[in-house]
């Protein structure tokens, strides 16, 4: 098993109701598998997950990417700074 930290920002944090979570995931899990798992854990996230961005260790990560050990992930909507 692999322990990861997930940060939630902006509208995603509002939906989840918490700023961060720690999770144990199987080794070799991909970003899209994690999203699926999160959709089960937080059903209120399901509709938003399609357009949710994911970062792994502060770099954008895409569906097929494997999640490394002790990773810091973040889930957030498309950015709107400026």
């Amino acid at each position: 098993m692999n322990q990861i930290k997930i940060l939630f920002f902006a509208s995603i944090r509002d939906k989840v109701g918490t700023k961060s979570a720690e999770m144990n995931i199987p080794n070799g899990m991909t970003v899209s598998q994690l999203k699926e798992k999160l959709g089960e854990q937080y059903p209120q996230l399901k509709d938003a997950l399609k357009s949710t961005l994911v970062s792994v260790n502060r770099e954008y990560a895409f569906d097929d990417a494997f999640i490394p050990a002790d990773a810091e992930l973040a889930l957030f909507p498309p950015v709107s700074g400026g």
Partner: protein
Amino acid sequence: MTLMNFPTVYSVTEAEINLDKLLEEITLTSSGAAAIFTGVVRGVTKRGEERRTAYLEYEAYVPMAEAKMKQVADEIRERWNSVEGIAIVQRIGKLYPKTPTILIACTAAHRDTGVFEAARYGIDRLKEIVPIWKKEVGENGETWIEGEYIPASGD
């Protein structure tokens, strides 16, 4: 915030943006021109349906945001080797109309070697990839503003 041979200054901050100080930090003795862009909170927006904004509330994923600012600066230097200094600042927190919220400034020896284009490229990229979000508070309550850009590999 980082200083290299050519200064690159970047930060996410709750403090007021000080243009004069930032310009000074990125001006070398060889610099003759600076192009600066700042974004400001609008109290009235007329594009689309007209609306009034009481304030914006900004939040950031700070360490990733600063890494992405650094990346935008690196991309600028790859494209315009005339650029000498670069400053990038995003202010976060509760910001009222007429307040500068973001700044990008580039210096160069002369004004005709890409310094305007570099600043323009910079603000466009910052708005695409830097993980910062704003919630608009106005007459219709609170609304998260969401961007449209979906990052791809290499962003």
